[in-house]
């Protein structure tokens, strides 16, 4: 029967073309943000061609949903995407290839019910296998299979005793439902991609997938251990090297030229300087050049193999050491650095030189050169044993 109002003659008219297999939701036009233009209610005998401007959208264009009734309150539901397989209350735009069908029932052609996308949209489980082409040709439509949760769809269209009951759906409070035609067919289901059943996965593949997933998880957790701590983030950027090698940093290059152990230090015209009991002096001569600007390598530390940090000794004024030499680009300057250490701290020790960071201004991410002195246990012992004399500090 063709008693179905034209509102439900949705065979894809007004929708963008989509290819087979393409998701229907993907091709659905974007919903208008504001309320759609009020449309005239379709009265019997009046073709819906005289509907509002929204109806004039050609098929295939971004047809806004034409369900806005002036009396209907615009809710968030109206901003949802219009269902392509519109339910019976939807008045489609007349198209050239589909003649408008005058609704047999005066009330059936009413528009103005907000779309119930989630309710009347045929779900996968309730969708008929495919649209009947014959139905499309005759204008016959199929209703979506009524579900338990649908509020107004079945009552509006079955024409049964429940048709006149007020709809208590959220979109239309208390509005009596118009009488529906006595017999309707569910609208044709939208064309759905045929889902191919996936090939069964073998047990070995499942196992491999699980192992891969666990390995990825473990790698993600292991990567977290490489995250720098807050202390490491504010510490200088270290370039490492060995004695005799020019160690490049972003701001300077430094090379350890000589490493000596001394029992005492002698500055010209000054008293001899002795270390504290049980300690020796380690004299490291460093040659350095700047990269971009002039700087002073005022911080010098000896880091032992077990992580103890010895500052350069205060027994020698920094004016005699590398700390007061200006290190400039394209120029080489060298100076000694003096450490006062116990002899057992020497094996594996490194010397670290850098600029001194100022807490308030200047570069907060300084570069430091960490240079391995190349002293193993035997070399350190030999150096300590052979150190008998007094190291004379050069004047320059």
């Amino acid at each position, binding site marked *: 029967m063709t008693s179905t109002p034209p509102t439900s003659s949705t065979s894809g008219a007004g929708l963008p073309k989509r290819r087979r297999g393409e998701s229907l939701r993907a091709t659905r036009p974007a919903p208008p943000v504001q309320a759609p233009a009020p449309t005239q209610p379709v009265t019997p005998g009046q073709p819906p061609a005289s509907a509002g401007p929204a109806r004039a959208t050609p098929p295939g264009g971004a047809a806004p949903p034409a369900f806005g009734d002036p009396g209907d309150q615009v809710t968030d539901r109206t901003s949802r995407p219009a269902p392509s397989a519109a339910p019976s209350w939807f008045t489609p735009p007349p198209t050239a290839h589909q003649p408008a069908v005058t609704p047999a029932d005066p009330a059936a052609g009413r528009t103005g019910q907000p779309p119930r996308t989630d309710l009347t949209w045929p779900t996968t489980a309730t969708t008929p296998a495919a649209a009947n082409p014959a139905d499309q040709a005759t204008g016959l439509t199929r209703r979506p299979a009524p579900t338990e949760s649908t509020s107004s769809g079945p009552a509006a269209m079955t024409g049964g005793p429940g048709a006149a009951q007020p709809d208590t759906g959220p979109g239309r409070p208390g509005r009596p439902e118009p009488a529906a035609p006595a017999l309707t067919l569910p609208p044709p289901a939208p064309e759905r991609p045929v889902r191919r059943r996936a090939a069964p996965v073998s047990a070995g593949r499942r196992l491999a997938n699980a192992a891969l997933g666990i390995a990825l998880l473990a790698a993600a957790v292991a990567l977290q251990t490489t995250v720098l*701590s*807050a*202390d490491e983030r*504010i510490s200088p950027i270290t370039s490492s090297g060995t004695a005799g090698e020019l160690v490049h940093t972003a701001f300077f290059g430094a090379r350890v030229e000589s490493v000596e152990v001394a029992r005492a230090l002698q500055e010209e015209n000054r008293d001899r300087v002795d270390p*504290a009991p049980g300690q020796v002096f380690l004299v490291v001569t460093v040659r350095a050049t700047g990269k971009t600007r002039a700087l002073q390598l005022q911080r010098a530390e000896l880091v032992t193999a077990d*992580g*103890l*940090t*010895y*500052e350069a*000794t*205060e*027994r020698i004024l920094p004016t005699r050491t590398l700390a007061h030499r200006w290190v400039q680009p394209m120029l080489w300057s060298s100076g000694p650095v003096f450490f*006062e*250490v*116990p002899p057992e701290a020497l094996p594996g020790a490194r010397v670290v030189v850098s600029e001194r960071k100022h807490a308030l201004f200047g570069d907060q991410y300084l570069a430091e050169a960490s240079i391995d002195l190349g002293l193993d246990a035997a070399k350190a012992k030999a150096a300590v044993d052979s150190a008998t004399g007094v190291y004379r500090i050069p004047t320059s």
Partner: protein
Amino acid sequence: MASHRDGSRRRRRPVLVPVSLLVAAAGLAVAALLGGFAEAPPEPPETLGKGDTIDQVRIRTTFTDAVARRGGDDFGVSDKRYLLIHLNVTNLSDETVSAHSVVSASIPTVRADGKVIKGEELDDLGPRIVINEQGRYLNQIHPRLTRPVIMAFELPPDGTAPQQVELDVATFEWHESFFYETHSWVVALDEIPGPGGDRTRTRYVPRVVAKVEMPVRVEGDL
């Protein structure tokens, strides 16, 4: 839910609720006996004397002596009088420390015969804290080394020397910054709420973990 009428199953006595109530009541009774849920008062600082040693996490300090003497060749100026507190300070941390900074921070208050001669209420530079090595004043204490440190107060030119000194000793802790999550050595602090619970006037003072009382030995002709 239907009740069990199965006679074959032995009916179990419901004990869980009574027993847990008993346990909770016993716990409350014990807590009440031990002083209730109020915050326990802080442990009183231990009292130390001459020659005692205290571990302050970053350093370890031995209070060797307290001497009142005139300046000389080895220390100070000969026409001035000094109160010298001798300490042996061991650097327990992994890096070189400055004797002045660690000792000054970890001994926040010094009293001589009850009168404060070092404290944050005094508007002065505080005592001189040095390592005196044959008249050469040094400041570095390298890791794991013990150096003799002198805390020197200048005494007024007249009057008698104090009989006793009392030192408030604080301790260090390896503190993580709340904002930056970086770590540094700080002196452990106590929060002193402002008058009437005024949070804007809350003060933080070093937590005194020990009080050291030493008699002052007068050396030479003062």
